[in-house]
């Protein structure tokens, strides 16, 4: 499912809303998560999961081909931890619904 398919699906479920409002809602949600992470905040959505930012400190890396050392600066990586309920749901389904699209 892509973002645009998600928007179409939400429009079907909410026929009383304009599609352009649905688009704004979906964009707002992902923009808000992005902005929170860009402030270094966590985003915790119970049952779904939590987004956080992990810091990787600066290190001296090596070019694996030449062996030359390179300075790798400090960086921040977004991280997602699946929530308990979602983790369980991914595995319940296994028995009954092997592959449907």
């Amino acid at each position: 499912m892509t973002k645009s398919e998600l928007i179409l699906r939400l429009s079907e479920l909410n026929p009383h809303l304009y599609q352009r409002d649905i688009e704004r809602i979906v964009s707002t949600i992902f923009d808000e998560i992005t902005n929170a992470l860009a402030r270094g905040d966590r985003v915790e959505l119970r049952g779904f999961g939590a987004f956080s930012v992990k810091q990787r400190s600066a290190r001296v890396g090596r070019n694996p081909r030449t062996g030359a050392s390179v300075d790798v600066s400090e960086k921040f990586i977004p991280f997602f931890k699946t929530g308990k309920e979602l983790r369980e749901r991914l595995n319940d389904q296994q028995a009954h619904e092997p592959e449907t699209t």
Partner: protein
Amino acid sequence: MAEGTMTRADLTEAVYQEVGLSRNDSAHLVETVLSEIVEALTRGEPVKVSSFGSFTVRQKGQRIGRNPKTGQEVPILPRKVLVFRASHVLKGKINRALSKAPARTPEAGEPGSSASSTP
């Protein structure tokens, strides 16, 4: 927002501010977005959100684990796990905002330095 953690309530508030819906409808929409993502994933379908990232379900095989306290071997059953891969756009935004390195500020806008952008 409560000490550095964003929750559904904050997302609802943002949607409420952005679109002319009631708080109730905003909360409902936030919930539906999440549950539609969950449903796609439980069908085994990947979810790709452009300029944010993608969620994919990966099948893990059985392996032998060990109880770290007792050292006893226990089989870890085959299972499905969710993997999130952040897009380059998301990584870029986070790094630009959080990096302390002053040499990289976008306002500096050195025209010659564009060759060595982030990998």
